[in-house]
């Protein structure tokens, strides 16, 4: 125990001796957490639309008014040349081009049927889908109005109504930041923990000081604990800064669930993540190698975690990979506890899995560590 406390003193001194590094460890996550959630908004709005109107009738003008009044669309141009319309699509000025054919009103009245042409820039498939869907629903409600107008001239309108009342639980105002802030916080804490821990140990290898320690009577587990504990503390500190300073003060996010449960999971999670850092360090001889390996893993962890895209939508093989990603579980747990107030009984499975990760990564790292020294 005495040896460990000396080692810890040394490690903390080394960390505090480099104020630039320390400031970076704290500032980078806090600044990013403050800014990045504002950039993460997938809601489709302000769709730029160009209307190519060959008809210039009352109906066509009514339709255009209805589109601009819906609030989703910005009318970029209103003309009568489809070439011009395509030009706007090509230069990204417009997302959608709506073409109203000549004789639109006349055909609709006389033949009861008319067709509109919609060209959508679909490079971003999701945006195209949603934007096209909005426009289609505006057109269909315009259609409804016309129909009603004609019905009133003759027969009575007989229609069946099915009301679908939607209620949004846990986030009634549909605030996207409530969803993103906890997720980004998890990623930042993961990076600080795993990355700093790996770099720190490899640096000792590179400089050669690790050999000096190896010839002293310090036991291996003391050395490893001496390396892990400081970053465990830093991880908890960064998480706390993020949760109270940024999430609460800037975004007004107050966890619904128990803080004790949240910190309990964080403590366990950090053990697993530091295990990954330790593991990376045992496979690297230089800081550059550790960095490349950490970058490689971080990319996969990040993309397969459900932070940006949902895990359920991935193909089965990818969902399997996501299940071997510790970040996936912590993001889930953080969102559950903070937003839904889930209790221990709801996240028992997550606790067990994380304990498994912690055991596997650390055992693997320690075995590998012995082999290499």
């Amino acid at each position: 125990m005495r040896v460990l406390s000396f080692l810890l003193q040394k490690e903390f001194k080394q960390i505090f001796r480099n104020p630039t590094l320390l400031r970076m460890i704290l500032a980078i996550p806090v600044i990013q957490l403050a800014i990045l959630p504002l950039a993460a908004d997938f809601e489709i709005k302000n769709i730029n639309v160009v209307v190519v109107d060959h008809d210039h009738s009352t109906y066509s003008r009514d339709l255009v008014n209805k589109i601009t009044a819906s609030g989703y669309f910005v009318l970029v141009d209103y003309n009568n040349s489809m070439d011009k319309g395509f030009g706007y699509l090509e230069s990204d000025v417009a997302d959608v081009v709506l073409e109203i054919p000549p004789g639109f009103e006349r055909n609709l009245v006389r033949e009861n049927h008319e067709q509109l042409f919609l060209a959508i820039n679909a490079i971003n498939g999701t945006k195209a889908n949603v934007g096209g869907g909005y426009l289609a629903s505006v057109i269909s409600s315009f259609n409804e109005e016309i129909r009603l107008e004609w019905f009133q001239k003759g027969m009575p309108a007989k229609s069946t109504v099915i009301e679908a009342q939607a209620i949004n639980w846990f986030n009634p105002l549909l605030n996207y930041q409530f969803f993103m802030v906890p997720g980004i916080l998890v990623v930042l804490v993961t990076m600080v923990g795993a990355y700093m821990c790996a770099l720190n140990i490899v640096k000792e290898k590179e400089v050669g000081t690790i050999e000096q320690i190896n010839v002293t009577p310090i036991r291996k587990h003391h050395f490893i604990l001496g390396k892990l504990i400081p970053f465990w503390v830093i991880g908890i500190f960064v998480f706390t800064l993020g949760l109270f300073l940024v999430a609460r003060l800037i975004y007004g996010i107050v966890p619904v669930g128990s803080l004790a449960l949240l910190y309990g999971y964080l403590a366990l999670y950090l053990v697993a993540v530091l295990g990954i850092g330790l593991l990376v360090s045992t496979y690297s001889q230089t800081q550059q190698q550790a960095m490349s390996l950490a970058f490689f893993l971080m990319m996969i962890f990040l993309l397969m975690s459900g932070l940006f895209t949902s895990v359920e939508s991935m193909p089965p093989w990818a969902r399997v990979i996501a299940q071997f990603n510790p970040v996936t579980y912590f993001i889930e747990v953080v969102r559950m506890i903070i937003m839904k107030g889930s209790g221990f009984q709801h996240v028992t499975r997550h606790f067990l899995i994380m304990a498994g990760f912690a055991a596997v990564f650390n055992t693997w790292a320690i075995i590998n560590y012995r082999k290499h020294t």
Partner: protein
Amino acid sequence: MRQLFTFIKKEFKHVFRDQKTLLLLFGLPIVQIILFGFALTNEIKDASLVVVDYSKDEATQKIIEKFRTNSSFKLEESILGTKEIEEAFKEGKVKMALIFPADFENDLIHENRASIQLIADATDPNTATTLVNHANTIIRDFRQELATGRPDHSIAIDTRNIYNPELKGTTNFVPGVMALVLLLICVLMTSVSIVKEKESGTMEILLVSPFNPFMVIIAKAVPYLLLSIVNLSVILFLSVYLLDMPINGSIALLFAVSILLIMTALSLGLLISNSTDSQQAAMLISLMGMLLPTMMFTGFLFPLENMPWPLQLVANVVPSKWYYIIVKDVMIKGLGFSAIWKETLILTGMTAFLLFVSIKKFKIRLS
């Protein structure tokens, strides 16, 4: 010239000696392109849905059947009571609940009016809104089936999805991955190159030798430039043959602008390397400081036009944003140089500026 050549040869040897790093450098784009291409999608599929049916009649059965066959939803078989829904939500098992009140069909037939309650887990607002929209469409379809006869005065819509008729996610993600991988790898690798020599003391040897500092910088960058070109080729090869992506524009133009982006990234990396005094600091800036912002400000994950204007300004200084636009224009839209000259000019300006500052900083160190 001969000196420079010798220098470059030396740097190449350094790079190739570290086989682990090299392996990762080549492995990363491959893994990324496969993950992005196949696994990531913003589409919502198989969202778990529970149904509470208090009516249990033919109409509700028909609607439930429609939900069952829709690919957005995955119907959980268990029929729960309202109280159990909350538990299911808290365990994160369910994304939406559909509740039919008693006498649903009865109301529908006799009063022409019936209601359904949808409860969405709005922890993720996007998923919630999308699912509610999908549900509304399904219910509207059902209602239209109830109405007999062909409706009068109907407007049909002929929709054409330009550039990506099948609405594949890859068309959007591949240009994004190209921007991300090329930029980050180059910055990451070059950012440690000079600071490493500083840290190990070999820099001083270089500084007392009669070499032009400019040459040192070029020699550091050349191996990574070549490596990145190989990476670029691998990415393009995989996109075309594995992901069925088209290259509609000129390949030569695509390579030329890619090399420009690589040079921007190299200059940025050199600048970081010149401004820091430990590898740890350089790595912190280039990995922790750049990974997330680059991802989010390139524009392929979240639309830039949705961001508040100060953040749109921030996005303007992220080189990958401009490169992403260029790749979309050349690769997918098949446009020529006339469409991308503005973005190319911006990247060229960035490169010139970064190189200038970086050399300036380097010279200060000499004195």
